[in-house]
Structures are given as C-alpha cells and as structure tokens.
C-alpha cells in the first residue's frame, strides 16, 4: 500500500541472520529518497522507518540489499472480525457463568418463599439464617453483579447514569432493606419484616442471561458485513521477473500483473490484458448472470473467476479497491442513525435519572398513603420500577434495525449511504428515472434510414458519422458505430458546433451540414415538407428520429433506438405497486418519450429536457410536496441527484462512484431500485415496531411497577418478574431486528 505524507512504516525483515545486517539494512533504507530515519530492532527483526517514502520503495531497497521485507499492516478486516467474534464468545460464556451462579441461589430461595416457608424475620434463629443468606447474596452481588455496581459507580462519578445504575440501585435497595430487617427487626412492624434476597439474586441472574442472549443475537446483525469481508482473497499470484509468486494480498502493488485461474477470486481491482473469462459478480452486484470479460475490461476484488485464466494489471489495491470502499461505506452506514431514532436518543439521555425520581416518588406515595406494611410496599414498588425500566430497548431499537437493514441491502447490491437516506427512501412518493442507461440499455443503435434527397444510405452514414465523430452524445456514438460496422468511412467535417438540446452543425466543403431534431431544422429554416409525419411514425415506435440536412436541403431521416432493458417493465411495475409515482425524464422528443413510457408502463414523463434542466424538474416536483427520488447514472445527473430527496446512482457492474449518491445500485437493473425501496420500507417498519415496543414496554411497565393496579385489583408487580421483563425487552428488540435478515425484497 502506498503511503504518502510524513508517516512511519514498520517492516518485518526476513533473512537477517546476524547483528551486522542491521547496519546494512538501515543504510539501504536511508538511501531511499524521502526517508528521514530508519531504526532496526534486531531482536524482533523489525524496522521502523519514518519519512515520506513509499513502502514499496523501502521494500525494494531492502531487497536490493539481499533481504526480504514485508510491511506490517494494521490487521486485516477479517482478523479484526474474528477477534471480535472470539471476544464476544468469551463474554457470552462469562455472562452465562454469572447467570448460573446467581440463579443457583435465587431459584431455591424463590421456591422456598413461594411454596415452603415465609421469608420473614421474627426470631433470633430466623435472624441468623437470613443473615447468612444475606451474606451469600452479597457474595452473588460481588461475583455475578460486580460489573453492574462498578459501572454504576463510575458513571455516577461522571455525573452520568445508565442501565447499570438502575440495576445496581434496584438490587442494592432490595438487599439493604432486607439486611436492615435482619439486623434490626424490632424497628419494623411485624408485617413488614419480609426479606427480598431472592429478588436481588434472581434479578442479577436474569439480567446476565438477557445480556448473554443479546450478545449472541447482536453477532447475527453483522452477518452481512462478515460476508463482504469474507469475499477478500488472502493471497494473489503476481508475475514478477517472469515468475509466478503467491504473495500476501497486502503486498500487491499498483500495476502488478496478477494471474487468476478459474474458480479463484479476483484479489485486487484491475484491467484484463491477457485471456478472457466469465466472472460471477453476483456477490457485489446481486446480478445473477456471470459477466463476460475480455481484454480491456475491469475486474473487481472479491468477484469469482469462472471459466478461463486471465492476467490483469492491478489498478487499485489495499483500501482503495471497490470492495474495501464498499465495506467501509456499509460499516459507516450501519452505525449512522436515521432521524426517526432521534427522539429515542433524547429520551434515553434523560431516562435514567427520571426513573430514579419516579421510583422515589412512588415509594413516597406508598409510604404515606399505602396500606400496611407501607414500608414494604414502598420498597417493593421502588425496586420494581428501577428494575423494569429499560433504557436499552429504547437505545437499541433504531441502531439494530439499521445495522441489519443496511447489511441486507448491501447483499442485494444496494449501497445505502446513511440512516437518513434509508428513512427518506422509505417515504418516496415520486421517482424520476432518467431514461438513457437506466430504463434502456444506454447503447443506442441505428434502426432506420429514410432517404429524402440523399443518394444512398452510405452517403448519409458517411456524412452523419463525419459530424457526429466530434460529439460525445450517446446517440452520436450509435451513428459512428453503425458507419464503422458497415465499413463506411466518415467524411471530414470542420467548424463543429453543438447546439444544446437541438443537435450539431459543421461544414463540409464550405457547405453547412446540420444533424439534429425538428427544432434544429425549424431554426435553420430547412424545409422538411411531409417528412415530419414519417419521423412521427418512427417516434411512436419508441425510436428517436434525427434529421440530416446539407446546404439547406433535407437529406435523410435517421432513427436511433435504445433497447429497453428486459426487466425494466417488471421493476417499474414493482415501484408502482408500492404507490410510487414513476416519472421518466429524457432529452428525447415527446413522441419517442411517450412510446417508451407506454412500453414500460410509465404514465408521466418529461421529454425534451435539456441536461441542465434535470434538476429543475426535481425541484418542480418537490414544490408539489412530493418526496422525490431521482435515478440516474450518477455522472450526467449529479446536480439532479444531489437536489432530489434521495439520489439513486445506477451502476453497470461494479464500476461506480459509490461516494456520490445517497443510494448506489451496483447492478444495472431497475430491480435494484425496487429492492432499495422495499428494503428501506421494511427497515423503517422494523424500527417503528422496535420503537413502539420499547416505548409501550416502558410506558406500561413503569406504572404497573408503581402499583397503579393495586387500588382496584390488588396487584403489585413482583421485582423478579420485573427483572425478567427487563432482561428480555432488549433481547426482543435485537431479535426483531434480526427478523429483517429473512426479508426477501422481490416478494414484496
């Protein structure tokens, strides 16, 4: 990987057998331009180089001194992922251990309290026995609940309160109250001498269990990114000095010649220069059909070479490859929050202290106005409120769904830039689709030539190819290609001038040559007589007619047609089924636009739109209170894509500027667009379910814990049940988010 700017590079040195090598290696490195200093550590055979020289140059210098060197990279994404999984597994096991320890005390105590005896303290014997149980419970708190208490205390010192605070306060209150009963039973009325050690132990056990299950469920939410990371090959076969070398992917340099055999993954991005093959790009684009690759075609990291051997030149390596950029973008998007989550964030920020206050107020109400034993009711209600309130479910509701949703989208070749784009995409009411290259193939072909005053088709093509060879318009390319295909040589033209939205003009032997649409002919006063009707017929058949005129006389009409992509019709129907108004945008004349729109099932279209007017059309719809999506190729439509509420850049294959749009569709098919909308809708629905569940849980649970049902039904929630509810509320949120993994875009 090339590093520029002042930096330090660490290398592993191979083949340095004696201490005298140190000087030699350092000298070799110091001779490289841009190196400020090189220090070798002989003990671990590494060298630290500072300066602004590239790693490749330094490695070459070391090699020329007779040693080998490899750059010590920051660990690979895959290593980091594996490490994270290992750490999660350990954490899971330790939480389970804590669960078992706490429940092994909590469950017997609870069974005793429910079925066998009273958990009250009256006699000295009971005082002693419950005192011992209290000490055992304290041990449980210190062993299995240690992390809650430490977390709560540290947060407290930071003027912060979190889930740990609530658990520590809830279990702590129950234990301290019980110990007061045990130590000084005479201070309390007979009825109030009830101990709650079982609640403390059970709550600690249950919450640890909930956390353990949550660790497992969270692991699943990052499966999509794991799959993407797994696409990266570990080694590459490069040809250096005529020899094939299998080297670590980190050491592939720009312009290296890389050989890939059938069945192997493409290790870095590049351009084929020998051989041909078909390559399966479905893992990145979602496009199931393998793509034919010949000399000059791009190949992309992580895709699978199917049929033939190829050699390609590396054009992007390391963190610059399309795959690496996709991974980093998906990761970033997975951690970004859509606006819908903001309210939950605000609530979460004030939640815990508010719960503490509610618990105290509830305790005061019970103490002053509750039935006897009022102190018991006060303590039970305060403990239950502290335990049942769950800020986690609220905090997790949005990020978990975004994580799964964005990952799911990436799996179908849809890259969503951030949470906001995800949310807005779900609310799109109108979708503008640029015709060329999205609905159509973007590869127009000449279909008809109607001779008017011209002698032959050859003459028409020679003249039109002559003028269009100056133009970069896609239709121009079709003309030039058609002439080439028929072996017709273009006639030399000069003084070329492009007239935006109308056509082109040039001179041939001093005569004016015009090529363009009806507007151009009318502007230049060319008599087209009855031929307009012929052009009209062509347009009604979804072809684009263009007029060719020389020296004020109409020579011919050439029709060009851009074939509609086979799945455009179906994909547009899917969009309409979602209640989205689909509008086609094109520079074509109205009749052609109407014919194409009709063919693909689009009701509305903007025709004859100048390139610079595309953004105005977006604004026009926005003024009509539509949430506007704009789909284009991301190159010519940049201003319109930027202005739209959500810009969708449609790529062909993987050659896309993924940073440019709100949503990037990796494959050319419009199904990607329908998938993107379907996934964002499903994700938003999932977030809403989660937020609703988390709100309702807290809004219903807290009054229940405070005892609102007591005056009428005589029901007061048991703190143990509160602990179980709390432990499973956040697990429910994570599990619901995980349901999104099963989402199949095409069935909706």
């Amino acid at each position, binding site marked *: 990987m090339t590093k520029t700017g002042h930096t330090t590079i660490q290398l592993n040195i191979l083949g340095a057998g004696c201490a005298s090598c140190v000087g030699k290696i350092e000298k070799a490195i110091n001779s490289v331009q841009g190196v400020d200093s090189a220090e070798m550590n002989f003990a671990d055979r590494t060298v630290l180089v500072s300066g602004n020289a590239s790693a490749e140059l330094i490695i070459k210098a070391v090699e020329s001194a007779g040693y080998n060197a490899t750059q010590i990279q920051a660990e690979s994404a895959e290593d980091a992922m594996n490490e994270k999984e290992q750490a999660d597994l350990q954490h899971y096991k330790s939480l389970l251990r804590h669960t078992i320890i706490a429940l092994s005390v909590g469950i017997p105590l609870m069974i005793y309290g429910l079925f066998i005896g009273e958990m009250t303290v009256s006699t000295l014997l009971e005082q002693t026995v419950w005192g011992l149980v209290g000490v055992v419970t304290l041990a449980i708190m210190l062993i299995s609940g240690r992390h809650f208490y430490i977390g709560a205390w540290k947060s407290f010192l930071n*003027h912060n309160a979190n889930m740990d605070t609530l658990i520590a306060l809830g279990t702590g209150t129950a234990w301290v109250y019980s110990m007061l009963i045990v130590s000084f039973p005479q201070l309390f009325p007979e009825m109030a001498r009830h101990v709650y050690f079982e609640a403390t132990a059970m709550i600690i056990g249950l919450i640890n269990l909930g956390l353990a299950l949550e660790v497992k469920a969270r692991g699943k939410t990052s499966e999509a990114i794991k799959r993407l990371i797994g696409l990266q090959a570990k080694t590459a076969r490069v040809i250096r000095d005529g020899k094939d070398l299998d080297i670590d992917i980190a050491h592939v340099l720009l312009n290296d010649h890389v050989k890939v055999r059938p069945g192997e993954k493409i290790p870095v991005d590049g351009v084929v220069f020998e051989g041909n093959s078909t390559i399966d790009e479905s893992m990145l684009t979602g496009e199931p059909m393998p793509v034919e690759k010949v000399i000059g075609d791009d190949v992309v990291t992580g895709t699978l070479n199917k049929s033939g051997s190829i050699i390609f030149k590396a054009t992007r390596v390391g963190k610059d490859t399309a795959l690496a950029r996709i991974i980093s973008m998906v990761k970033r998007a997975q951690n970004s929050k859509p606006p819908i989550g903001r309210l939950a964030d605000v609530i979460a920020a004030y939640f815990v*202290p508010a719960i503490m206050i509610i618990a105290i107020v509830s305790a005061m109400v019970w103490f002053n106005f509750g039935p006897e034993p009022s102190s018991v009711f006060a303590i039970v209600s305060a403990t239950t409120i502290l335990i049942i309130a769950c800020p986690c479910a609220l905090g997790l509701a949005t*990020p978990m769904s975004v994580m799964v949703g964005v990952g799911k989208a990436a799996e179908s070749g849809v890259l969503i830039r951030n949470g906001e784009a995800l949310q807005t995409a779900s609310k799109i009411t109108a979708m503008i689709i640029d015709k060329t290259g999205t609905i159509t193939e973007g590869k127009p072909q000449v279909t008809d030539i109607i001779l008017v005053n011209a002698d032959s088709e050859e003459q028409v093509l020679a003249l039109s190819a002559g003028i269009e060879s100056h133009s970069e318009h896609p239709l121009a390319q079709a003309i030039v290609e058609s002439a080439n295909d028929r072996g017709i040589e273009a006639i030399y033209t000069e003084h070329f001038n492009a007239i935006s939205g109308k056509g082109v003009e040039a001179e041939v032997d001093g005569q004016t040559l015009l090529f363009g649409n009806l507007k151009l002919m009318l502007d230049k006063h060319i008599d087209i007589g009855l031929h307009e009707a012929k052009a009209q017929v062509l347009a009604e058949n979804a072809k684009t007619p263009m007029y060719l005129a020389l020296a004020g006389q109409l020579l011919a009409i050439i029709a060009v047609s851009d074939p509609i992509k086979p799945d455009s019709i179906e994909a547009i129907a899917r969009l309409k089924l979602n209640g989205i108004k689909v509008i086609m945008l094109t520079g074509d004349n109205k009749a052609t636009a109407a014919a194409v729109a009709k063919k693909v099932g689009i009701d509305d279209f903007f025709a004859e739109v100048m390139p610079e007017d595309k953004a105005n059309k977006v604004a026009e719809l926005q003024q009509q209170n539509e949430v506007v999506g704009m789909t284009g190729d991301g190159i010519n439509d940049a201003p319109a894509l930027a202005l739209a509420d959500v810009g969708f850049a449609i790529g062909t294959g993987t050659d896309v500027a993924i940073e440019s749009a709100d949503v990037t569709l990796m494959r050319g098919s419009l199904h990607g667009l329908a998938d993107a909308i379907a996934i964002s809708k499903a994700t938003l629905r999932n977030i809403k379910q989660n937020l609703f569940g988390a709100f309702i849980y807290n809004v219903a649970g807290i009054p229940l814990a405070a005892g609102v049902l007591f005056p009428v039904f005589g029901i007061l929630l048991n703190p143990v049940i509160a602990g179980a509810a709390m432990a499973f509320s956040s697990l429910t949120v994570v599990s619901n988010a995980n349901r999104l993994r099963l989402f199949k875009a095409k069935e909706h």
Partner: protein
Amino acid sequence: MLINLLCIALIGFIIWWFWLYKPANDSSVDASTLILVKDGVYTPARIKISANTPTEITFLRQDKSGCSATVLLPDLEISQDLALEKTTTIALPALEKGEYPFHCQMQMYKGVLIVE
C-alpha cells in the same frame, strides 16, 4: 416526616447531580490522552482539542460489553468500531469551536470533545 424530607432531598440531589451540574472545564484533557473505555464510562470523558486543526483521538476499549464496541460522533458522522484490548485511533478533521458529544450506540457511554 423525616423519610419524606430525605426523599425530597434525594430527588433534588438527582436533579442537580445528573442534569444541572456543569463540570469545570479544567477537568478536560487534551487529545493526546488515551481514552479508556471501561466500566460504563470513557475516562477521561471531556477532551479538549484545538480548533481548526485536524487531530486524532485514541481509544482503548477494555469493556467486553457490546455497547462499548462502537463509538459515535454524530455531529461529524463518524462511527468507529473499537477492538477489545487494543487502541483505536480516529482521525478528526479541523473543527470549529464548540462541543461535540461522542457516545456509544445506546448513549450509556458519554463523552464530549471541547474544541477551543
């Protein structure tokens, strides 16, 4: 009566301690300090950095809980996974004066960058 008064005092204390208390700015430290992610808090949690200069902040995560695994800087659209028992450095662009909070996904861990 005494218990009621105690409860009211406790409520007052909670409001003051968690919501009204404004830490003195001298408790913040500069960006070169390692931010420890452990036991539910960032230590230190108030980081002072200079305005208009790109800088880096480094975290060391020692807490295994899933919550601590990601740090978000919502104003800067930065989110970074923190590897366990390893330092993770986040490059920050040049920032204007102001306070930029950072937190974990669920806002249990909280800190703030003070740009001066």
